[in-house]
């Protein structure tokens, strides 16, 4: 295990140095990531210039939600990007090389790509958090800070699992399946608002099928003082269960794998 961490550190430093070779390109992409999420932030602002609240949530509360989802997504994209671009790895035969190496496939796919420019979005999320933390009306006691950290951490895991599911499907289709975007990119875009605003069915879907609401809506209820029930504070942990189907699907896909031959 220690060995794996050391190896990952090596990979990380390689990725870091290689991306720093093209500094302008790196800075531009980071800036681009920042701008894209900044325009999303502006749309939320515009909506709240017109409307006072949505489904009982105020502007700072929605921003809290926005920042958590954005940060979780960006970190997942930064570190689990290998699964997101897995179709090309299958297409050009890189995956065959992975299979003959003496390390786990998941570990290798993760360490193949680390996209540091995605930190532009993390920067945006931190920026939003800095503004919103003091004015959200939340009294920041230790348990609330813990909840916030847990939301982001589980968010990273759930989004990463979605990328794994996406990659597993590639074993069967070779091409990436555009429809999965609705859960990854869509999860980020629509997760700007608490999932309850989309109605009961959608909330149920994002609770039981694709557990995005587990690290977003339910703990937010606790964070904003809508409920005193400590259970909601630990709800994100249930989201970790999503790792089970993702891992299973990956296994099934791996068994099914046939090289594309190029």
């Amino acid at each position: 295990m220690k060995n794996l961490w050391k190896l990952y550190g090596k990979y990380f430093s390689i990725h870091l140095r290689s991306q720093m070779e093209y500094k302008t390109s790196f800075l531009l992409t980071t800036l681009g990531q920042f701008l894209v999420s900044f325009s999303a932030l502006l749309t939320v602002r515009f909506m709240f210039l017109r409307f006072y609240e949505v489904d009982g949530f105020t502007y700072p509360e929605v921003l809290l939600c926005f920042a958590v989802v954005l940060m979780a997504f960006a970190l997942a994209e930064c570190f689990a990007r290998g699964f997101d671009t897995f179709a090309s790895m299958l297409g050009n035969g890189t995956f065959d090389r992975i299979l003959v190496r003496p390390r786990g496939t998941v570990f290798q796919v993760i360490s193949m790509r680390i996209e540091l420019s995605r930190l532009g979005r993390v920067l945006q999320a931190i920026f939003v958090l800095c503004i919103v933390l003091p004015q959200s009306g939340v009294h920041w006691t230790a348990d609330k800070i813990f909840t916030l950290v847990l939301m982001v951490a589980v968010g990273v895991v759930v989004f990463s699992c979605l990328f794994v599911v996406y990659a597993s499907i590639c074993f069967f289709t070779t091409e990436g399946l555009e429809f999965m975007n609705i859960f990854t990119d869509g999860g980020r875009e629509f997760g700007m608002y608490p999932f309850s605003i989309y109605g009961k069915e959608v909330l149920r879907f994002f609770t039981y099928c694709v557990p995005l609401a587990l690290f977003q809506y339910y703990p937010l209820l606790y964070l904003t003082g809508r409920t005193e029930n400590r259970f909601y504070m630990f709800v994100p942990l249930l989201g970790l269960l999503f790792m089970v189907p993702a891992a299973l699907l990956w296994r099934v896909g791996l068994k099914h794998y046939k090289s594309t031959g190029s």
Partner: protein
Amino acid sequence: MKKYWSFFRMRFLGGLQYRAAAWAGIATQFAWGFMSLLMYRAFYDADPAAFPMEFPQLATYIWLQQSFLALFNMWRYDDNVFESITTGGVAYELARPIPLYAMWFTSGIASRAASAALRCVPVLAVAFFLPEPFRMHLPSNVGVFLIFAASLIAGTCLTVALQMLVYVSTFYTLSSMGVRIVMMVLSDFLMGQLIPLPFFPESLRRFAELTPFAGMQNLPLQIYCGTVSGSAMTQALALQMFWLGTLVACGALWMRRSLRRVIVQGG
């Protein structure tokens, strides 16, 4: 003219081949449209009086947006063009007896039209039969529809004309990354891709309507929904034509100038 037509047909028919991708795209766009509508619905329920459009108009706007996404999105470029510029392949293109600008322009329009043609029919077909208030509506009369169609075509041309400027800038920068990102963020925002222009604050909306971006997706869709009509519509259409003329002229001139001094790299 005939050569452009056959070139257009070639690219259009080529684009129609990607049917499996289109089906996946349709499903995604459908889900995306539905989620957007549910979000707006929540805001509508919070305060109907503050809603700047009528809800059926917004539903129509969203479905049109999802159907014709391929016509206006600014993240879709012809990678062959960039490649031909950076690898020097553009030298071959220059040897052809068609002006380069016209050729790339036609090709851009054709691939967009093909992709939109594949996607719009199923999305629209379902959108018309959804339950109220999420249903797509017909325009108020045939005249409005014709103006919508004309401005849809002009808007597509405007989008491609803007992209041509990005292509030409690649002659100078070789890597178009930065320009592309800024262009994408600006256009997505100002053409009403993220939220429709009526949801903007008043002063920013007035400014956005003056930019070329407003003529891209915003104008045709708003004409169809009936949120822009009468003299405001005439003015907006005139502005759309003005920007189209200006951007095409600028692009063509700029390209001529840069081609005069272009140095083809490599062998």
